């Protein structure tokens, strides 16, 4: 074994994204260092999926990531009221529906009703 050549070994940094199920997006988990993309995948699985399950891993060389700066709060500025884009901007519906003896309807109610088994299967 050659010990004389103690040249520094520099691995690349890979950012790791894991998809838990195919109904989920890939989520950033952290990063690993590895000599190749293949080894980065292997190390990522060992580091981030020892317990949790997943269906897919992406590794991306860090130098390929383009990101916004953290120190420019203006980039994410919300100077206008965006209530008109949000469910919470329409809370008066509940009060208005009451006049017609009805209740406000929400997405959660629709999803729950759809998940309930049809009557004939009960």
């Amino acid at each position, binding site marked *: 074994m050659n010990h004389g050549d103690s040249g520094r070994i520099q691995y690349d940094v890979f950012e790791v994204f894991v998809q838990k199920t195919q109904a989920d997006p890939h989520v950033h988990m*952290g990063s690993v260092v590895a*000599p190749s993309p293949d080894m980065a995948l292997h190390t990522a699985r060992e580091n981030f999926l*020892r317990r949790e399950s997943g269906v897919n891993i992406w590794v991306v060389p860090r130098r390929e990531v383009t990101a916004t*700066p953290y120190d420019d709060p203006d980039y994410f500025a919300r100077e206008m009221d965006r209530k008109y884009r949000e469910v919470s901007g329409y809370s008066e519906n509940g009060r208005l529906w009451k006049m017609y003896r009805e209740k406000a309807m929400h997405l959660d109610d629709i999803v729950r009703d759809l998940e309930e088994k049809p009557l004939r299967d009960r």
Partner: protein
Amino acid sequence: MTEEERQARFMERLERGEKIEATDWMPDEYRRLLLKLIHMHGVSEIMGAFPEKEWVPRAPTLKRKLAMMAKVQDEMGHGQLLLRVAEDIAAPLGKTREDLVTDLIDGRVKFHNVFHMEAPTWADAGVIGWLVDGAAIINQAALLETSYGPYARVLKRICAEESFHMQHGENIILALTGGTDEQRRMLQDAVNRWWESLLFFFGPVEVTEAARKMIQYKIRTKTNEELRQQFFNKYVPRIRSLGLTIPDPDLRYDEKEKRWRFTPPDWKRFSEIVRFNRGPKSRDRIRLRRFAHEEQRWVRKAMVRSGAAQSVV
């Protein structure tokens, strides 16, 4: 912007509870304190695997053996996550991953006192999971609020996995307390062996200059003594509930002061153990770590070459 203005703006960010990221400007002092803390944390995770791996071939059942191996993998994994965070902090100082690793085997970075000690019986393996990991969780949970974002994120994962170690350790000691007289004696001996190390683990009572600075920078929020008191609160009643004796006749809760009084550990002996790697197992374990690092260098090199070859194809 002058240096003073930058520093002032940085402190304002901390005051607002903002997290600092690797690419942000930070005072040199902040960077060095962070590196010192996270480097030591990272190498301690790696050295923490050594007393445990000694018990993998000797674990009493297959289930225990599998769980010990899982713990060893976790500790190594935590070491990797933490060194990843540390090397990003170290890069502007001209230090690399390789430096962080060789600092350990050349004795330039300390690791926690508990990992310098012997684990001669199976009860020690249990006590390490129960009390050493228990103490470590208190330390790490207190750091979840840290001002450095990348550290906060890996700590979340580490704490979740450490809580498995805690349950595993408790399961071992609960099996021993429900066992024979000999097993209970073995457990008591292990508690006696570890008690002083556990008290030292939290560090000196006085708030050192470095600790004061870390609190000022919100790298940490609690003092050593606050964490040690938390450990007493949580563990003294549990240890006693098992019929075990804590080897400190002067340990008592001072109702008036609302704090535990205890016989201090031998500060001098333990600080020499961590500073000069003079514990009963320090040299053996570092030798093994050096062997792993040096004898596998050719593998790392070969992988770099094959990785480069792949990219050409």
